[in-house]
């Protein structure tokens, strides 16, 4: 149901994400957020049979990975974990849509396969764009960006708190699961009742921690509002970054570039 539930190990995905220290690509998070959302909107606006027209958009994640020095494997691993739902639903397309819409010599391709393939490509594009948003700006910066774009403060501070305490809670959970596993010998898995009290125990600890954090906050004058000292103004470069990419997305959306290239190449060969 959830990629996050796969393993505690997947928490490693969170590491290195708040890379406040010298990001390779300095873009204002707001520019990045806008670009990412437009990218995703453009990707998902493609017709389900227009697999070909979609392809040039691959340039976006690929060059971001290169510019931001994000390892390809990092992104790919998480894409793989998350893919089942899209694949599961998409795989029905070839079943229900058998119209032949393309022929390659002896090979007839049905609309279902094309649309299935385009679902997969869309999945790869949109999800990698979302992951890259955080990889490149860092989660905290994205949150601050959202705050400046009008997202309610409560939600912004909630996101920051959540990220801060995920590690703490996960460590506690891991210790409890390990303690359980060490004493349950051959019986694998956790019974329902044990889970209930283990989880309840974890919840109690979380409640206590919330109280202690609250104490620490009021001790330093907290009165309902979290102030942050972080100013970053949007610079010309950021606007250029966003507008160049958005221009590119629209270009790709309006012209079928691969077909153009293909015809050009075939034409010159002939």
């Amino acid at each position, binding site marked *: 149901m959830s990629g*996050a*539930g796969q393993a505690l190990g997947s928490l490693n*995905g969170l590491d290195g994400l708040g890379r406040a220290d010298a990001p390779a690509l300095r873009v204002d998070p707001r520019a990045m957020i806008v670009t990412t959302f437009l990218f995703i909107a453009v990707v998902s606006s493609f017709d389900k049979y227009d697999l070909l027209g979609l392809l040039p958009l*691959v340039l976006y994640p690929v060059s971001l990975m290169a510019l931001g020095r994000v390892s390809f494997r990092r992104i790919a691993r998480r894409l793989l974990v998350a893919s089942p739902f899209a694949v599961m639903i998409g795989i029905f397309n070839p079943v229900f849509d058998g119209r032949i819409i*393309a022929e390659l010599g002896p090979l007839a391709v049905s609309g279902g396969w094309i649309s299935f393939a385009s679902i997969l490509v869309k999945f790869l594009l949109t999800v990698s764009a979302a992951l890259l948003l955080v990889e490149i700006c860092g989660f905290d910066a994205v949150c601050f960006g959202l705050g400046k774009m009008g997202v309610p403060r409560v939600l912004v501070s909630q996101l920051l708190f*959540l990220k*801060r305490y995920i590690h703490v809670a996960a460590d506690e959970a891991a210790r409890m699961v390990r303690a359980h596993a060490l004493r349950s010998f051959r019986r694998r898995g956790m019974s*329902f009742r044990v889970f209930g009290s283990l989880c309840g125990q974890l919840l109690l600890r979380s409640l206590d921690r919330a109280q202690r954090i609250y104490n620490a906050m009021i001790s330093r004058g907290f009165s309902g509002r979290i102030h942050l000292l972080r100013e970053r103004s949007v610079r010309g470069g950021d606007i250029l970054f966003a507008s160049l990419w958005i221009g590119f997305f629209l270009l790709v959306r309006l012209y079928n570039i691969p077909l153009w290239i293909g015809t*050009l190449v075939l034409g010159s060969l002939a």
Partner: protein
Amino acid sequence: MHMADALISPAVGGTMWAVTAGLTAYSAKKIGADLNERIVPLMGVLGAFVFAAQMINFTIPATGSSGHLGGGMILAMLLGPHAAFLTMASVLAVQALFFADGGLLALGCNIFNLGFFPCFVAYPFLCRRIVGANPSAGRILAGAMLSSIVALQLGAFAVVLETVASGISELPFTTFALLMQPIHLAIGVVEGLVTAAVITFVWSARPEVLHVAPGREAGRLPMKKVLVGLVAIAVLTGGVLSWFASTHPDGLEWSMLRTAGTEELSGHGSAAHAALAGIQEKIALLPDYGFRATPGGSGAGSREGESWPDINAGRSVAGIVGGGLTLLLAGVVGIVLRRAGQAGRSRPTPER
């Protein structure tokens, strides 16, 4: 049951984003008005708790398979509807951003499906009424069970509706619904049991926690107003977006052309557009694939959608060659950029 970007259309995604944004603003305002600053760290830590709890798998009785917690109901019972909704939204956002669960366009759908139903429907109308002011183990079980089932059924049904409305998956409505609802009935029962087990445990250790939530006010929620507002937002955005989408299969393209092409040929947009069309004609690569707003055509021709199904072997080959070259080009650009970046970075290092 996370929706994925790849399966929804911008119209559906945008509509659900608008609805979710409305709910978020409403919840944030409500929490701000409560002036209970204690809730700030509590929400954060409980969000982290849900995250951690989702990582622990348990064995589902009598099946041998394993499951994990969803958490929406637990949050609602501890935090009350508004804070729980925001907490759930934050959990789902982090999952989308870090773990590629769902996606950003689908995030609106996911927050609605997994946050709205438990927090604003199942909790105030079922759970809170059943558990009441004097909780007992039995009441907690009944309340958690019933509301989890209802919340997940509604959520699953919303997934079906959103998917079908997007029209990207070919799954017919009934088939998909028949697939989703029973599965989520089972998931709902399990979620209900787990929720009840966890809440009962905490309640017996610390009875006061069920009252931490400003939930008592939930009854006074001007729910009608909220619902009317939400429906209005949904209808408005959905209407506008799907009008865009349906008057032309490609909503975005259509709107571009509208502003550039048909809307008074004298506008500056049209000049740019005419220039583009001119370039296109000069290159004259694919007459049948030409940009559609050539004078007279005025946005009537269509590139894909209807034109794809005509079988055209020559074009398929061109497509495959072009597609391959495009990907190759993107790859080369990537490699060049990375090399350039590394060169740029390795230079200053010795100076340090």
